[in-house]
């Protein structure tokens, strides 16, 4: 079997960032690819997840939020090469945003007292737990730290759900911009100089009336301490940006074959390209088997829907003992002997087929919208069961990397 481009990415990348709209299966995809990397390619893989489905977390042995990667036991899985035990390793972590912020402050603060005064300010509490955009930054920052540790050959990172799929790309730059902004400089000026600085006076008047002077005071205290992190922060944000642009980093965009997530995927793919970031591929999740829809089957479905009776008689005839030779397994014939029930079943079957055919058509149209990325589209099959075990996850991962 030739290696697909996606398998090549899993084999050779150091960092894979998985993005896309909410609800398309980003986390599952990230975990499935990580598992293939460990089991079939023998790499040492870390999967950083943000908010996995409970059963997926269960399958990977993750109980609670943890920034420290936990080892996932994969010894019982079989590598694709005959009977050879997997030689790689898999670890997984589930980001704790608040703890990550605290770690970052402790790392960047010049001394313990500054760190303490930042962490005790009410504004810090809000920023670290509620400021949604900060999650994007934290996820990427966490990735940087773990990559730097050099413990892993490959880190697959699942991006947090955000208003806009591009937010996590912007996060480091925004952090940097914030630190060098005029606003921050102004906020950290002593109050009196703020009032005499004529450029800011109108703003200050409005701000004070709207927000209240006490809040502005808190804000000013907070950013005064926060500013001491400036050097460490900016340097870090630049390093993080560099890692995202490194040749060993690739981005994978996940979508489902529906309109809204595909629009988001196309947007994200273009944004990545325009930032000269490496788009490794677009993964279309939950696709239906291609061979499902044929002219013959479609015609049969329509004919049954129009007039099911003759087909029901035909089906009952086939089920009658002896009618179609000896191939009918014993026990089957007693199952469907009622003409009415058989009619209902056939109509239902025709309806289901029709619905599937429409979904397949929708899939075709959405894949068509992605045609500019043709050589980088990978399709994952719709699974019949939810991912509850590493075996199922591995199956999904293999279906993804081995397709074509």
């Amino acid at each position, binding site marked *: 079997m030739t290696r697909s481009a996606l398998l090549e990415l899993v084999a050779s990348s150091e960092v894979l960032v998985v993005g896309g709209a909410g*609800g398309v299966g980003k986390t599952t995809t990230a975990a499935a690819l990580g598992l293939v990397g460990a089991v079939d390619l023998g790499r040492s893989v870390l999967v950083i997840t943000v908010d996995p489905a409970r059963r997926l977390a269960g399958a990977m042995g993750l109980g609670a939020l943890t920034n420290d990667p936990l080892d996932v036991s994969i010894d019982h899985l079989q590598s694709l090469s005959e009977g050879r035990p997997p030689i790689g390793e898999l670890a997984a972590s589930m980001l704790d945003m608040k703890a990550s912020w605290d770690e970052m402050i402790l790392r960047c603060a010049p001394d313990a007292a500054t760190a303490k005064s930042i962490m005790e300010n009410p504004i810090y509490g809000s920023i670290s737990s509620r400021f949604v955009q900060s999650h994007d930054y934290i996820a990427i920052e966490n990735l940087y730290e773990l990559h730097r540790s050099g413990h892993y050959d490959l880190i697959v990172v699942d991006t947090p759900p955000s208003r806009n799929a591009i937010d996590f790309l912007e996060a480091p730059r925004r952090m940097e911009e914030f630190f060098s902004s005029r606003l921050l400089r102004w906020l950290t000026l002593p109050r009196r100089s703020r009032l005499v600085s004529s450029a800011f006076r109108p703003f200050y008047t409005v701000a004070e009336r709207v927000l209240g002077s006490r809040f502005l005071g808190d804000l000013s205290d907070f950013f005064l301490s926060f500013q001491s992190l400036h050097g460490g922060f900016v340097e870090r944000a630049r390093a993080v940006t560099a890692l995202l642009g490194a040749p060993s980093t690739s981005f994978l965009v996940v979508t489902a074959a529906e309109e809204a997530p595909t629009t988001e995927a196309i947007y994200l793919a273009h944004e990545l390209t325009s930032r000269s970031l490496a788009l490794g591929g677009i993964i279309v999740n939950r696709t239906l088997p291609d061979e499902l829809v044929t002219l013959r089957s479609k015609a049969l479905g329509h004919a049954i829907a129009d007039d099911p009776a003759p087909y029901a008689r035909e089906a009952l005839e086939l089920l009658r003992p002896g009618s179609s030779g000896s191939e009918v397994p014993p026990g089957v014939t007693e199952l469907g002997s009622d003409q009415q029930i058989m009619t209902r079943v056939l109509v239902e079957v025709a309806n289901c087929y029709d619905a599937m055919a429409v979904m397949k058509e929708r899939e075709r149209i959405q894949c068509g919208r992605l045609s500019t990325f043709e050589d980088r589209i990978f399709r994952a099959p719709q699974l019949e069961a939810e991912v509850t075990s590493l075996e199922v996850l591995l199956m999904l991962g293999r279906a993804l990397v081995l397709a074509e």
Partner: protein
Amino acid sequence: MTAPLDSILSKRLIFVTGKGGVGKTTVSTALGLLAARRGLRTLICEVEPKGEVSRFFGIKSGGFVPVNVAENLDVMEMSTEAALYEYLKLYLRLPIPVRLTPLAKTFDFVANAAPGVREILVVGKLCYEVRERHYDVVLADASSSGHIVSQLSSPQGVGDLFPIGLVRDQTDWMLEILADREQTGICLVATAEETPIEESLELNQRLKEQTVVSLVAAIVNKVIPSVFSNLERTTFEGLSALLDAGVELGALDGLANLIEATRLWSSLGERQESLIQRLRSALPKQTPFAVVPTIPGVHVGLSVVTEVAETLEVELSL
């Protein structure tokens, strides 16, 4: 006894929320259609605008100023910046835009630096439309599970952050509207998959603990209905076995694909049943609860929204 739909649409402000991708916008618009059809002056507000609601009605670019799209039905797209301007204009009587230029430039940073400002502007604008009685029903196509709690808890949170100032003065009347279960409610939307259901359960818990707003309905969207009764299933298994045995099908040639599609379809449907029950049993018994089957269509457009509205009307009539 009032029908569940009547009790939902008797609210003045409804936040439609749930995990990303479950169909919040479709459900918000469907509820908006139903409200407008009953003669209620209705506003649908896209809180995180993607222009989807406008597109349903064939409008290219909606905006902060409500656009009339059908009888009794207006649509608007939230913009925190525009909301801030409106607010300042109303309460500070500032000449716009002369003195606001520095504010406009730095607004984004202030909003980011002081979490709660952005959120309270969104909630404030919606409550304002309710208070001024511009509409009978305001439907917020709200933020997804991740952000809705901070939005709805912002009026309380602001109390801690802003002990004085105009923002502080404004929170009392907002809280009054939000906390009144006769006026305001949350409509949870989920699909029958594990994560959206679990997230809805968690969200319900957090909304209860951290906000004053109460639950008004739960809707499970895009559900694949279960296909067969037991007796029919047995017959279906018989047909499957026939195919597995490789019997010559004659006129039924091509049946294999139909059976395969049905098998996949019903396996998807079966795992949904227990998830729907899990959500239903976790919510108070009297909470209006609706299951909307998936509508296999090539595009999501007004026709799908209308079909969802019709289903909701039936599902929520008893």
